[in-house]
């Protein structure tokens, strides 16, 4: 595990092509909506969150990160049946945090990505839970065990996914 503190000049900033910028989030949203119907266990994963974290950390731009998280979250809300904004707010926070963290830390290695993903998964869950309970008055039950296990599963999947998505990185 290697989490190194680097200066802004030492951290590399990546960009992505337009098809990847649009296609990968759409594919993630599609898989999230389609695969759990065939494989119910897949509902434990949150592919749009993993994509949000990846793009935010790779771009290392908080504004870009929060906008990416906001758009992906709002689209995810639009597909679902609940009020639009629940995932949007949570992923906006995650995108901002992940991009801000990417500026400060080098999260290129697997261990760092695992911990960062686990942490942001929990943050995402807490924000979603708070907004859903506080504003929309949805009946949700928080379970730390379930959240941590799901966070670990998402972190493991995220590590694999990030290495795949690293292929689409373009140096600035």
């Amino acid at each position, binding site marked *: 595990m290697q989490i190194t503190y680097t200066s802004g000049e030492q951290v590399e900033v990546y960009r992505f092509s337009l098809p990847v910028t649009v296609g990968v989030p*759409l594919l993630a949203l599609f898989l999230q*909506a389609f695969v759990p119907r065939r494989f119910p266990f897949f509902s434990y994963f949150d592919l749009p969150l993993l994509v949000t974290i990846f793009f935010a950390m790779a771009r290392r731009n908080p*504004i870009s990160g929060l906008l990416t998280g906001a758009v992906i979250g709002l689209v995810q809300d639009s597909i679902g049946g609940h009020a639009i*904004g629940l995932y949007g707010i949570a992923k906006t926070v995650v995108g901002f945090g992940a991009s801000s963290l990417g500026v400060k830390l080098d999260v290129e290695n697997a261990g760092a990505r695992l911990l960062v993903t686990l942490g942001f998964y929990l943050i995402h869950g807490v924000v979603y839970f708070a*907004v859903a309970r506080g504003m929309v008055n949805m009946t949700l039950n928080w379970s730390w065990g379930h959240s941590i296990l799901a966070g670990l599963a998402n972190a493991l999947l995220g590590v694999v996914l990030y290495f795949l998505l690293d292929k689409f990185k373009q140096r600035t």
Partner: protein
Amino acid sequence: MESVLGRYRNLIILVGVLFLQVLGLAVQVKRSSDAESTRLIRIWAVSAITPLERGLVWVQNGAGNLWHNYFYLRGVRAENRQLKEQIEQMRLEQVRLNEDAAQARRLQALLSFKEQFVSRTVAAQVIGSSGSDLSRIVYIDKGENDGLRRDLAVVTADGIVGKVLQAFPTVSQVLLINDQSSGVGAILEKSRLQGVLRGTANGEVMLERVMSDEEVAPGDTVLTSGGDQIFPKGLRVGTVSKVGTGKDLFLNVRIRPAANLSKLEEVLVVTEKQERQAAAQVTERMRAADILAQRLPSVPDKPATPEANAGGTAGNAATGTALGASGALPPSKPLTVPNPQAGAATKTQSPSGSTKQGAGSIPPGTVTPSGSQAAGSSHTRSATVPGQTVSNGAPKTAPPRRASEPAAQTGNSQKTVGSKPADSPATSPETPKPALPQSNPQPPAADDSPN
């Protein structure tokens, strides 16, 4: 100021974006019942996602079909051959089962018909026909060994079929009702018109002897009248299919037989029949006579004649009205309604069926219309059977009956089909055939059997 904005730019944008989303969320929460506010966004999102899903499903199905329908066909040829053989076997089995089911339905219909109308039947299978269009005859697999004999009715659940023409030891010959030589006493159910059912050369069934001024309409149901002494009364014969004007002032009524005479398989031969309906009619007629007797003006009272008194209280039988089942009157009680004819034209019947009449009215030994001998003067009881006494002065013209026969044939009396009428006075064994001075007995039902 600009430095502050530049320094906290990211945070301000974050707060702004979050504020906008919270605001939008608040609007949605406030309009919780109004889904139209987010409809456009959802349509966009779904429109962006669903084409991918549709494409993936199409690819998945296509790949699955390609694999299952084209590539993964190992053993299909052998399986196909095996399935075809199985289908052939199942078809044969289905044909057999259908045949069994149809036969079971037919037999069940016959059984229910038998329980409803006739008392004793013999089920038989049609095994052959005459093989000629000129004679409508079929052969059944039951004969004399099974109790069959000539002139027994052959029916199905749908209607009558014909009669036994010849009974052989193991098979019988059945003459169908559409044969030219066949004839059945028939009656139209609605109009109660009677006629004779006869077959024609081309296999049709006609109802003859119906006057042209009678109203017969197609669709009328034709039943057996029972007058032929072969078929039980009330069995379904068929329906009127066509009515035309015939010769000699008779109608030309064509009948469509109820039973499918061209596709006979199982039939019932009626060896004994129940006459519930006929017995009920007798009872009905008696009651009508009682009603008539009550409505007739009463004859003025008259003292009893010495002849009547000589007969003791036997003359009390001439009370003119029904006395009830017990019917016992005290010997000394005067007659309430003396009959001037002193019982000569009256009759009361004991429960045993014998008729007891006042002494002197009928000489001893005289046979009453009921066939019983006139009683002597020692009878003191005149028990009457309800509905079987006669009116004042009106001669009772009940059909003659054997003395040993039960008085009231209101039960399910059984009669062997084909036997001669047992109530003929000429055939009564204990009847010495004296003159019938006071009675005008109806002759037994005329055997209008055209068979």
